C-alpha cells in the first residue's frame, strides 16, 4: 500500500505528440481515483507512466515517497488490469493467476493457497482449470482482476477494465470492483471514458482534456461546482443545457428571457476586459413545470414558455425536450464534447433543452408549456476560456449571488 504522487508529469512522444502535460496529482494511500475524459485525452498514457510501461518525459513520479521514474514496472510492485484483459492464452486460469507469484519465486503451497483465496473472492474456483478461450467476457474480466489482486501489490491500475462488457454486466462488475477495492483498501487508479462509471466508482475524479487536468474532486463536487465549461458538459447524464447569453444593462438576454444578475457577477462583468457574451448552463433537474412550483420557490427562478417536443416518462420523473429560439451557444469545449458524444451534427436553428420535470406534470407532446427554472443553480461561462464565472471560492453560487 502506498500513496502515488505525480509532480508536473509530462509525456512527449518521439513524433512530437504531447499526450500528457504537467499533471499534478496526489493520490492518498487506499484512495480510489478515477481518470476520466474523452478518448485521446491522455488517460492511458498517464496510467502507463505510473505503471512504468511508458517513460516519463519530464516531472517526477513518487510511489510510497520514493522516486520511481527510472524503475522498471516489476520493481514498482503495481498490478494492472488491461482493457483487453491480456490473459495468457496458453495458461489455465490457475496458471494465469499464479504467474506473478511464480515470478516472485514463492513456494508452491503459498502460491496455491493465494490463488485459491483470490479465486474464492472472485467466484472463479470452478473455472481454475479452464483456458481463457473457454471463458465468457465477464469471467475473463474476473480472471484479470484475480491476477491483479493475488499478489497484494502496492496499487492497482485499471485501464477501462469494463468497456468490453455489455451494458448489464458492466453495471454488475462496477459493484464488484467497488466492493473489492473497499475490501482490500488498495490504492487504485482507474481509467474510463464513461462519466457514469467515474461518478459512481471513485472517491475522487480527475477530469482530463487534451493531456491536461481540468478539475480534481469528489464526484458530487465536480457535478455541483464545475470549474469550467468542459467539466460542466462532461459530467452529468443527460448533460447540462447550454444557451447563448448576451450581457445587456446589467442583465443577461437569453432564449429563456432576461436573467437578472446579482451584485457579484455584475461587478465582474463591469471590468473592461469582461466578456460581452456568455454561455448559460443549467442542468435538466433545475427545471420544473411552472404549475407545480409554489410561490416561495417561484421567486428564486424565472419562467418561460416553449413548445414541447418529446416527453419521456421514466416513472419517477419525466424527461421533457423543448426547442427554444435564439442563437446557439458555441465554444471549442462544446464542439469537442459533442464530437466525443458522436453528435457533432445538430440540426435546426434553435437550441435543444432537456429538462427533468416531476412525474405529476401534465405536460404533453405538441402543446406549449410554461416551465420554471432555478436561478440559484445556473452557471455562467466565459466562452473564450471556458471559466465558470459563478464559481466563488470553489462554490457555484448561481446568477443572483451578492
Amino acid at each position: 500500500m502506498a500513496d502515488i504522487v505525480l509532480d508536473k508529469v509530462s509525456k512527449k512522444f518521439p513524433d512530437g505528440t504531447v499526450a500528457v502535460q504537467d499533471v499534478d496529482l496526489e493520490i492518498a494511500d487506499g484512495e480510489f481515483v478515477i481518470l476520466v475524459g474523452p478518448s485521446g485525452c491522455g488517460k492511458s498514457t498517464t496510467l502507463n507512466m505510473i505503471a512504468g510501461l511508458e517513460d516519463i518525459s519530464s516531472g517526477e513520479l513518487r510511489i510510497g515517497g520514493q522516486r520511481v521514474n527510472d524503475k522498471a514496472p516489476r520493481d514498482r510492485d503495481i498490478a494492472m488490469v488491461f482493457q483487453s484483459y491480456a490473459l495468457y492464452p496458453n495458461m489455465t486460469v490457475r496458471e494465469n493467476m499464479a504467474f506473478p507469484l511464480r515470478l516472485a519465486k514463492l513456494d508452491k503451497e503459498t502460491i496455491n493457497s493465494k490463488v485459491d483465496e483470490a479465486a474464492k473472492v472472485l467466484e472463479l474456483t470452478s473455472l481454475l482449470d479452464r483456458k481463457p478461450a473457454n471463458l465468457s467476457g465477464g469471467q475473463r474480466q474476473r480472471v484479470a482482476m484475480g491476477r491483479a489482486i493475488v499478489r497484494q501489490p502496492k496499487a492497482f491500475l485499471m485501464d477501462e477494465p469494463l468497456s468490453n462488457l455489455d451494458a448489464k454486466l458492466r453495471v454488475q462488475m462496477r459493484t464488484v470492483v467497488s466492493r473489492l477495492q473497499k475490501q482490500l483498501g488498495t490504492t487504485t487508479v482507474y481509467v474510463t471514458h464513461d462519466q457514469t462509471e467515474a461518478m459512481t466508482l471513485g472517491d475522487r475524479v480527475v477530469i482530463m482534456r487534451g493531456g491536461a487536468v481540468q478539475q480534481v474532486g469528489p464526484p458530487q463536487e465536480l457535478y455541483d461546482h464545475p470549474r469550467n465549461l468542459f467539466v460542466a458538459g462532461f459530467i452529468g447524464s443527460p448533460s447540462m443545457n447550454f444557451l447563448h447569453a448576451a450581457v445587456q444593462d446589467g442583465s443577461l438576454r437569453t432564449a429563456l428571457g432576461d436573467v437578472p444578475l446579482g451584485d457579484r457577477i455584475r461587478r465582474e462583468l463591469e471590468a473592461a476586459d469582461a466578456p460581452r457574451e456568455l454561455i448559460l448552463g443549467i442542468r435538466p433537474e433545475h427545471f420544473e413545470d411552472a404549475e407545480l412550483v409554489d410561490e416561495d420557490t417561484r421567486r428564486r427562478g424565472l419562467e418561460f414558455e416553449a413548445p414541447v417536443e418529446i416527453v419521456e416518462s421514466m416513472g419517477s420523473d419525466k424527461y421533457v425536450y423543448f426547442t427554444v429560439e435564439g442563437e446557439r451557444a458555441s465554444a471549442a469545449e462544446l464542439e469537442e464534447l459533442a464530437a466525443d458524444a458522436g453528435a457533432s451534427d445538430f440540426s435546426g436553428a434553435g437550441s435543444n433543452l432537456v429538462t427533468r420535470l416531476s412525474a405529476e406534470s401534465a405536460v404533453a407532446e405538441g402543446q406549449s408549456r410554461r416551465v420554471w427554472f432555478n436561478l440559484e443553480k445556473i452557471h455562467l461561462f466565459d466562452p473564450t476560456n471556458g471559466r465558470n464565472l459563478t464559481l466563488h471560492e470553489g462554490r457555484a453560487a448561481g446568477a443572483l449571488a451578492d
Partner: protein
Amino acid sequence: MATGTETTTRARLRWGLLDVLVVVFALVPVLWIASLSFKTPATITDGNFIPQEWTLDNYRTIFDTDQFVRALINSIGIALIATLIAVVLGAMAAYAISRLDFPGKGLLVGVSLLIAMFPQVSLVSPLFEIERQLGLFDTWPGLILPYITFALPLAIYTLSAFFKQIPWDLEKAAKMDGATQGQAFRRVIAPLAAPGLFTTAILVFIFCWNDFLFAISLTSTERSRTVPAALSFFTGASQFEDPTGAICAAAVVITVPIILFVLFFQRRIVSGLTSGAVKG
C-alpha cells in the same frame, strides 16, 4: 426441395470428379516413380503400372553406394543448418518488424520482398564466380549461405504474421506481473509463437531440401553435393547398368520424408500459413 438436393448432389459429383482428376494428375508421376523403383532392370521398361516382379535391389544399391549416402548426409546437414540459422535470424527480424517502429523498417521489408521475387537463375553465374573467388565453391557454407538468403524473406514473412497476432498487451501484462524482458519473451511470447516457429522451420527446410538449381551449380564433388543434384550423376551399381531404377529409388527416399512431414504436421502448417491472414 427435391430439385435443391438434386442440384447439390450433382454439384457435389462434379466437384468430386474435378478433385479426383487433380489428385490423379498430381499423384500419378509420384506413384509411377515409386513403382519403377520396385522393378527389376529387366521389367523396368515393360510399361506396367504394377511391377510384375517386385524387388528391393534398387534400394540396396543406392544405400550401398557411397555416392547416395554421402549426398543424403549433405542434404540433411545443409538443410538443417540453413533452417536453424534462417529461423533464428528470421525470428529476430520479424519480432523487430512487428513490435518496433524504427527508421528503415519499410526499406527492410521491401528489400526482403525483392529478394524473394528475384529470379534465382540470374544469380547463379555471379554466385558461382564469387564463391570460387572466396573458396566457398563446393563447400557446405557455399550452399547454406544462398539458402539462408532466399529462405529469410519467407521466414520473416511467416513469422511476422505470427508475432503480429500476439497482442502487445500480453508482454505489458507480463512486465507488470514482474517479468523481465527476457522472461516475458521466454514464458509468454515464445510459447505462443512456437507453432509459427515450427511452421516456418518446416517451410524453410522443404525449400532447402528441394533445391536443385544452387545444388547443381555451386557444387562439383560428393563433398557437398545434395541428393537432388546427385541424382543426375547417378550411375547404378556398375558403370554399365541402367541407373533408372536406382534414380527412382533415390527419388522416393528423398520424397518420403517430406510427404510424412506434411501429412503429420498438415494442420500445423495450414493454420500457420493462414493464421496471419485470418484473425482468430
